[in-house]
C-alpha cells in the first residue's frame, strides 16, 4: 500500500512526501488514529491531502496510508433504516454520545440470504443474484447485485442461510478465467456515477401529496427539483414532508451542513409514522446521511456524492428512489473552502469556476432508467438551496436553476404569515407539467391541465390587481376584478395552504386533490355567473360555503368523500339561494 510522511500541516490540509504512486482522490488514513482524508493534489514527490476529520495533534513525520482506491462506500442490505455520517460510517453503536475522529468500524450486519441463481448461470454487472432479509420469514427483502464492473459465470452460490454482508457468497469466473468473489454488499467509488443500460424520458409523476406541487408544479419520477428559500421559509419541512409521503419506495435523506436537532427529529419521528402504502414504519424505507453543520467541512463536500451513490444503488435494484439534499448550498460552500485552500482562482462569489459543472454532474445523476439488469428504476433529486440574504441571483441558485426542471421558490412573506408551504406560485415553475398532464387525464382527471392553467392565471392576476388596489383602493375595482381577488384568496387558503403538521391534511391523494380542484373551479364558475347576473361580490363573500371551502383540506380526511359530496350540494344550494330572492341569476 502507498505510504507517505507528513511534511506540513495546517487546518484540514496537509502535504506529505512519498515515493509511492498515489492517485488523485485516493482515500487515505493519517496518523496514529487513522484520520480519514483524500488526496487532492499530486506534485512530484509531494501529495496534498484534505482531511475529512479533525487533525488536532497530527505532526510532521506522521504516516499517511493510501487505501489504493478512490473514496468509496460499501453498498448493501445494511443501509435501509439506518443513519450514517457523510462518509457512510454508521452513527450507531453504544456510548457514542460524541463523535471522535479516527477509525470506527461497526461490525458487518448479518442477513438471511435466498439465492436466485445457480452455478452455470451467466451474470452481468448489476444482475441480482440473491435476496437479503433481516429475518428468514420477513416479507420485505432487498436484492443483492453483482457489482456493475464485474461479470461472469456462476461457479459457486451460497445456499440459503445467514451470512455477514461482507462475506463472499458468490464466486464468478470472468471472461479471462479469473475468479471473482462477490458478497451481499460491494464497494463503489462515490464520485463515479453507477452505470445504467438506458435513460428513459420522464413519465409518471412522483406524487408528493402536496397539492401545490402535484397540481401546480409537479415533478416527474427521475426529475430534478430545487427548493430555494431564505432561512425559516420552510425548505427543511417541505423536503421532510415529501420524504414522508411521496410515493417513492426508498428515500435517501441527506442532511448536508444543517442542524443536528433536525436529524434527531427525523430519527424520532420517522420510525413512528406509517407508510400509507405498506403499513410499515416509514424509517424502514429510509437511509439518513448526516453531516451536520458542526461536522468537518471536507466530509460535507463528499457527503453529497455518498448520498447520491446510495440512491443510485437502490435505483439499480429497480426501485423508485427519491433523494432529498438539505442543503446543497452548504455543499457548494464546502467546495469553495476546499478550492480556496488549494489556492485556486476564485470565481463569482468566491466559488470555484467549476461550481456549475459540479452542480450539473450532480443533478445529471437523477433519471428514470432501465437498469443494467433490464428493470425500470428512477432516482428523483430534490435539493434545498439556501441563498445568502435570500438573494436568488447568487451563483448557487443561478447555476442550479440551469440544471433542474422544477423550481419551487419559497417566499418569505408567506412564511411570515405562517402560510405553509410558502411556495411562491408566481416565481415557481415545473417543466415536467406538460408531460404529466397525460397521467392525470388517465387517472380520471381530464380537466387537470385546464384547471391548473386557470389557477395559475388567477394567481397571477391577483398580483396585478392587488397592486392596482393599493393605488385606487379595493372598492374602486369593478365587481369582476373584486371577484378575481376573492377567488384567488380562496385558491390560496383552500387549496395551496396545507399544513405539514395537520394529521388530516399533511398528505392529499390525487383523488382528494382532484376533488378539491373541481369544487373550487365550480365555485368560480358559479360566482362568475352570479356576478355577471348583477349579484354583488359582498354577497358571494358572505356565503357560508366559502369558509367550508377555505378549510376543506384540514376538515375533510382522505376517506370522507361523502363530505365532499355534501360540500358540493351546499355550494349549489348557497348559489341557488343567492339568485332566489332577487331571482336574477339564470340557472346554469
Amino acid at each position, binding site marked *: 500500500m502507498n505510504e507517505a510522511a507528513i*511534511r*506540513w*500541516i*495546517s*487546518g484540514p490540509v496537509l502535504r506529505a512526501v512519498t515515493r509511492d504512486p498515489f492517485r488523485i482522490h485516493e482515500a487515505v488514513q493519517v496518523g496514529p488514529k487513522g484520520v480519514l482524508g483524500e488526496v487532492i493534489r499530486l506534485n512530484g514527490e509531494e501529495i496534498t491531502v484534505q482531511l475529512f476529520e479533525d*487533525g*488536532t*495533534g*497530527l*505532526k*510532521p*513525520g506522521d504516516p499517511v496510508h493510501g487505501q489504493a482506491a478512490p473514496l468509496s462506500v460499501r453498498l448493501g442490505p445494511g443501509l435501509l433504516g439506518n*443513519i450514517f455520517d457523510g462518509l457512510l460510517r454508521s452513527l*450507531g453503536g453504544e456510548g*457514542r*454520545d*460524541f*463523535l*471522535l475522529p479516527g477509525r470506527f468500524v461497526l461490525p458487518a450486519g448479518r442477513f438471511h440470504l435466498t439465492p436466485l441463481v445457480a452455478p452455470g448461470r451467466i451474470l452481468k454487472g448489476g444482475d441480482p443474484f440473491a435476496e437479503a432479509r433481516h429475518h428468514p420469514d420477513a416479507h420485505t427483502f432487498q436484492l443483492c447485485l453483482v457489482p456493475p464492473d464485474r461479470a461472469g459465470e456462476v461457479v459457486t452460490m451460497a445456499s440459503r442461510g445467514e451470512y455477514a454482508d461482507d462475506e463472499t457468497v458468490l464466486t464468478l469466473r470472468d471472461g479471462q478465467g479469473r475468479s471473482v468473489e462477490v458478497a451481499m454488499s460491494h464497494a463503489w467509488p462515490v464520485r463515479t456515477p453507477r452505470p445504467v443500460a438506458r435513460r428513459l424520458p420522464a413519465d409518471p409523476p412522483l406524487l408528493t401529496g402536496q397539492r401545490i406541487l402535484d397540481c401546480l408544479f409537479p415533478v416527474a419520477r427521475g426529475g430534478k427539483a430545487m427548493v430555494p428559500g431564505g*432561512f*425559516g421559509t420552510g425548505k427543511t419541512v417541505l423536503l421532510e414532508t415529501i420524504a414522508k409521503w411521496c410515493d417513492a419506495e426508498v428515500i435517501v435523506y441527506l442532511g448536508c*451542513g444543517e*442542524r*443536528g*436537532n433536525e436529524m*434527531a*427529529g427525523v*430519527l*424520532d419521528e420517522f420510525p413512528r409514522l406509517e407508510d400509507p402504502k405498506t403499513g410499515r414504519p416509514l424509517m424502514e424505507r429510509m437511509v439518513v446521511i*448526516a453531516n*451536520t*453543520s*458542526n*461536522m468537518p*467541512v471536507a466530509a460535507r463536500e463528499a457527503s453529497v456524492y455518498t448520498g447520491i451513490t446510495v440512491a443510485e444503488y437502490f435505483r439499480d435494484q429497480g426501485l423508485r428512489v427519491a433523494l432529498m439534499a438539505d442543503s446543497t448550498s452548504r455543499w457548494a*460552500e464546502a467546495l469553495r*473552502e476546499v478550492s*480556496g485552500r488549494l489556492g485556486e482562482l476564485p470565481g463569482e*462569489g*468566491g466559488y470555484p469556476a467549476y461550481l456549475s459543472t459540479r452542480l450539473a454532474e450532480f443533478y445529471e445523476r437523477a433519471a428514470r432508467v432501465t437498469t443494467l439488469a433490464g428493470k425500470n428504476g428512477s432516482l428523483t433529486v430534490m435539493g434545498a438551496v439556501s441563498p*445568502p*440574504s*435570500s*438573494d436568488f441571483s447568487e451563483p448557487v441558485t443561478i447555476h442550479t436553476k440551469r440544471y433542474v426542471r422544477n423550481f419551487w421558490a419559497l417566499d418569505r*412573506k408567506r412564511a*411570515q*404569515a*405562517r*402560510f405553509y408551504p410558502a411556495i411562491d406560485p408566481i416565481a415557481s415553475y415545473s417543466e415536467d407539467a406538460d408531460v404529466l398532464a397525460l397521467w392525470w387525464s388517465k387517472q380520471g382527471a381530464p380537466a387537470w391541465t385546464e384547471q391548473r392553467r386557470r389557477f395559475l392565471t388567477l394567481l397571477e392576476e391577483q398580483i396585478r390587481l392587488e397592486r392596482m*388596489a*393599493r393605488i385606487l*383602493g*379595493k*372598492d374602486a375595482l369593478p365587481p369582476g376584478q373584486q371577484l378575481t381577488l376573492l377567488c384567488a384568496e380562496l385558491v390560496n387558503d383552500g387549496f395551496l395552504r396545507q399544513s405539514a*403538521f395537520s394529521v388530516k391534511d399533511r398528505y392529499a391523494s390525487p383523488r382528494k386533490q382532484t376533488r378539491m380542484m373541481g369544487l373550487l373551479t365550480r365555485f368560480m364558475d358559479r360566482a362568475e355567473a352570479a356576478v355577471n347576473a348583477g349579484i354583488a361580490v359582498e354577497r358571494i363573500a358572505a356565503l357560508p360555503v*366559502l*369558509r367550508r371551502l377555505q*378549510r376543506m383540506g*384540514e*376538515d375533510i380526511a382522505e376517506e370522507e368523500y361523502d363530505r365532499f359530496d355534501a360540500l358540493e350540494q351546499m355550494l349549489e344550494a348557497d348559489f341557488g339561494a343567492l339568485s332566489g330572492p332577487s331571482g336574477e341569476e339564470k340557472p346554469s
Partner: protein
Amino acid sequence: MTVQADLFCADAVTRIEGPLVFAQRRVEVGLNEAVEVIGTDGRVRLGRVAAVDETYMTIETLESTSGLTLAGTRIRFVGEPVTFALGPGILGRVFDGVGRVLDGGPPVAAKMRVSIDGAIINPMRRAKPEDFIETGISAIDTLDSLVRGQKLPIFSGGGLPHNRLAVDIALHARLRSGESEPFAIVFAGIGVPYDQAEAFRKSLETGGALGHTALFLNLASDSSAQRLLTPRFALTAAEYLAYVEGRHVLVIITDMTNYCEALREVSASHGEIPSRKGYPGYMYSDLATLYERAGRILGRPGSVTQIPILTMPADDITHPIPDLTGYITEGQITLDRKLDRAGVYPPIGVLPSLSRLMKDGIGEGFTHPDHPALANQLYAAYARTMGVRLLAGVVGAEGLTPTDRLFLEFGKQFESRFVAQPEGSRTLEESMAVGWELLRGLPETELARLSDEQIKRYLRKPAADG
C-alpha cells in the same frame, strides 16, 4: 530526536505579524496544540499551533502580541489543545475571556479538564428538545416558544433593549410543571463595555441568580483574537454543568456581532480570501461549531439552551451575521425599532420572529390544546394587518372596507396589549387569554385558521376555562 511537550523554547521566534508568531520548531508539536508565548515583559499570552512543518511552526496568539520581541520571547508547549479546568465551583464566579478567574477569588478547584472546542454531538444521540420554557413574555411564550435545548438568538440593533430582555428571560425562565430542577446561567460577554458587563452582573445579583451563574467577560478593551475563545470557554463550562453536573443551563452570549468582527479581523491577518462583506467563507461553519453546542443528550439529565444576542449592522437582517446565524439557529426573536420608539417593551417584531422547535413543545400534552391554532391565527391576522396598513397608508382609513378597518384596530391592540406588557411578566394562560380576546374583535368568517370546534370552544366562550 525532538523531545515531548511541556517545555520551553527560547530564542526561536523569527517573525511576528499581527497575531501570528513564526518560530523554529525545536520540539515535537502537533496541530492545534496550546502554547504560551511569554514576552520579555513576563506576560503570558495564550496561543495555538496553526501550522507546522519539519523546521518551522506558526503560532496564532489569542491575545495581543503587542510588546513581544524576537529575541527573548519564550514559548511553552502544553502538549494538548486549549483546555479549561472545571469543577462545581465555577458557579458564582467571574472569569475573563479565556477562563482565568477575574473576581479576585481563589482558583476554582478542578474536577476535570476539557478541550474548549467541544466534541461533536452524535446526531443520533441527541434527545429531542420538547420541554416548554415559560419566559413570561407573551410574544415568545404564545407565538415563538422556547424549549430546553434550543438555540434561539435575539436579533437586535444598537440601542435596543436586548440585554434587558435577556436578563428578564434568564430570571423568569421556568418549566410549567413547577418542578425545580437544578439550573444554571452561563453568561458570556464578548467585546462588551465594562459598564454593560457590570450592569448585567448587578441585575443577576438583584434577581438572586448570581449564585448559580458563571460569567465570562471579554471586555471591549481585550484583544480581538481572544473574543474567538470566549464563547468556547463559556460553552465548555455550560456543557460541563449540563452533562456532568446534570443542570439545565441557559447560555446568554452577547454580542455575537463582536465575535464575527473578530473573526473577520483574524481571517484577514491570515491573508485569507474574504467572502461576503469581508467575512471569511467559513463563517457559517465556524458559527455552527458554537450554536450546535446547544441541545440535550439521550440518557443525560441536563440541557444547554442558548440565547445568543447579536446587533444587526444598520438593522439589516440580510447582513451576513444575522443571515448566517438564522440559517443555523432554531429560529430568532427579532427586535423592532419602530415598536421600541413607540414605547413598546419588549419590542418584539413578531412577523420576522420564529421558533422552529415550538411545535414540539406546545399543544395537547405540552401546554394547551388550543395553543398551536391560536398562534397560527394570530400570525395570520397580524400579517394581514400589515397588508391593510400598507393600503391605508395610500387610500386612507376611510378608503378601507369595514373588515379591513377591524384588522387595523386589531393590529393596534395586538401591539399595545399583547406584545407590550408594561405590567411585567405574564403566565402563558394570561398571554393566551389576551390573544383570544383580541381575535374576538375580528369577524369569525375571517378566522380561517380556526376550526369550527375551536371557534365554539375558545373564541365564543369567555376565557374563564383557559
